[in-house]
């Protein structure tokens, strides 16, 4: 299978869906770039070059650069979705949701329910999240738990290039509003990605490792850290199952419960702040559904309850890493490990 970067995988998914369905359009700030400028057109392709090259192939009619006006253009995408287009809007950094959240959670998310089932809102929002980039407090947050909280929204967190393409393609074909979270530290990650279009169904977890001792549930970039921790622990004689739920909404509860039942021990790894995050959500689920099957208290590995610091010295401690996951697994295993 051909190897592609996370960035290429996303670009390819968008192109293939635009070619397949003329109702698919993309929009965002500098999503092509050079709008109205005397120099190079398609100069940016977004800040990370993810959408570069799409505009020349599909024209500015379907690749819309926007002014800096998230409330208007994210809302515009929601309105266009409700009236016949299938927009893919880029919210450059998820931190900017503060500017446009109403259009997402009060408008797009609720149309279907409030209108008695009559609305269909095939809106995709691509957004960048995560720490580790020295991008400081307003450009590094996770925030997917906030979206997960809202009924009517679907939330996907691709952890590798294969998932990036498959989940984004599913998002674009999905008739509900979907937020796809792309981790900014993963755009250059490479992996096998089929050339043809494919979808990854929402609410179906991927089990990346199977083991007997501990189940690690991890999200987004943290899946890669969990895999690494599991490989290290394997050498030390502790075998882990690693579950990548791939979407937080819908959530594959069954796979989480089944794999945790098999091992009896749970570690959840979530890059978000610790309060009301995916880790607390999963631990709550497991505790309620299968308390009796647990051999040890569930462990949560998360970022701390503070904004993302700028200084590399602090940010490196802030981001949950492989060592902390291993420590949590050993904690779950108890004395002697």
């Amino acid at each position, binding site marked *: 299978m051909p190897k592609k970067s996370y960035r290429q995988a996303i670009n390819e998914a968008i192109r293939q869906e635009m070619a397949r369905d003329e109702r698919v359009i993309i929009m965002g700030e500098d999503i092509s770039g050079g709008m109205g400028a005397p120099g190079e057109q398609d100069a940016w392709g977004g800040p990370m070059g993810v959408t570069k090259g799409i505009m020349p192939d599909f024209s500015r009619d379907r690749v819309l650069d926007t002014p800096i006006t998230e409330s208007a253009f994210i809302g515009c995408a929601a309105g266009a979705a409700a009236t016949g287009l299938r927009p893919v809007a880029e919210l450059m950094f998820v931190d900017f949701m503060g500017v446009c959240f109403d259009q997402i959670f009060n408008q797009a998310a609720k149309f279907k329910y409030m209108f008695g089932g009559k609305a269909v809102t095939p809106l995709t929002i691509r957004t960048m999240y995560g720490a580790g*980039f020295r991008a*400081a407090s307003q*450009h590094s947050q996770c925030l997917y738990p906030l979206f997960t909280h809202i009924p009517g929204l679907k939330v996907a967190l691709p952890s590798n290039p294969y998932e990036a393409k498959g989940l984004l393609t599913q998002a674009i074909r999905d008739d509900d509003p979907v937020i796809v979270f792309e981790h900014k530290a993963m755009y250059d990650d490479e992996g096998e990605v089929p050339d043809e279009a494919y979808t990854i169904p929402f609410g179906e977890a991927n089990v990346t490792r199977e083991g007997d001792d501990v189940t690690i549930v991890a999200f987004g970039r943290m899946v890669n850290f969990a895999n690494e921790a599991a490989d290290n622990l394997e050498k030390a004689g502790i075998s882990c199952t690693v579950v990548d739920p791939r979407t937080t909404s819908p959530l594959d509860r069954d796979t989480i419960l089944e794999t945790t039942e098999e091992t009896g021990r749970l570690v959840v790894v979530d890059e978000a702040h610790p309060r009301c995050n995916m880790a607390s959500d999963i631990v709550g689920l497991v505790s309620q559904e299968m308390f009796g099957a647990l051999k040890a208290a569930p462990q949560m590995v998360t970022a701390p309850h*503070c904004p993302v610091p700028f*200084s590399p010295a602090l940010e490196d401690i802030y981001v949950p890493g492989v060592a902390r996951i291993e420590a949590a697994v050993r904690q779950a295993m108890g004395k002697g490990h």
Partner: protein
Amino acid sequence: MQLSRNDLLAAYRKMRLIREFEDAVHEEFSAGNIPGFVHLYAGEEASGVGICMHLDDRDAIASTHRGHGHCIAKGCDERGMMFEIFGKKDGLCGGKGGSMHIADLSVGMMGANGIVGGGPPLICGAALTAKTLKTGGVAVAFVGDGASNQGTTFESYNLAKVWNLPAVFVVEDNGYAESTASVWSVGGSQAARAAGFGMPCTEVDGHDFFAVWEAAREAIERARNGEGPSMLHVRLNRYYGHFEGDAISYKGEGEIERVKAEKDALMLFRNRVIETSLLDAGDMDAIDREVKERIVQCVTEAKAGASPTEADLLTDVYTSAY
């Protein structure tokens, strides 16, 4: 009011300090010594300095992601700023904020801002404080041409107007928001927008310190006298990329070089004060040398400065024990 010899020397020094600071950050960033994103203000010095010269410690400004120049102009300590940009513990924000969040409330600098359009509402707040507590203070929001399109900015115009707040909105129009040209992104004109909210607007050449200074004097006096908010539309150019690392391919051939050769703010200032015999070249050469040394010293010390440690991670989240 006239600019005294001391005012002119101070204005030139601040502009030179900003230029030297930004050139040094550019070099250090290119050498891989500075983490994260930095957005440089080089080329735009006359705006920040020409405006902030009318402000004192009663007054507040809110800046943008391109904040270093505003910080220096408003009186932030350049050494503390450099430490901050390097992520060091002795930085103005303890290394927690970085380039995009430098702030010093003690000198009325309410922060650079990572959110485009984040500043104008905050400036309404600072203006409301000044009005309510009768401090005589004025609040100034710096807004890029890109930020001028944000809803938060328009809402702030209206709030400032209907509450008759002592606020000034400075639209620093450097022609681009990232790679997007303001001739495309701005519907209507800044002046017409201001008029739509019942605010006066002055258009000013942002390369010309004296023009900025004059226009700002009027706007700030108006606000201070309780006559309400107004706008300055300042046209200028940025010399570096949107952020460090930007290839700037969207600009026209020779665009930056032309501005540097014909309209550089420091060059225009020098020419003007020499022609009118207000200052000698020697006065300014001495400032150039002193400022250069100062910045070299800031960089050297910042590089050698201590980083924050784990004990600092969870401090400053709340005011009370948590």
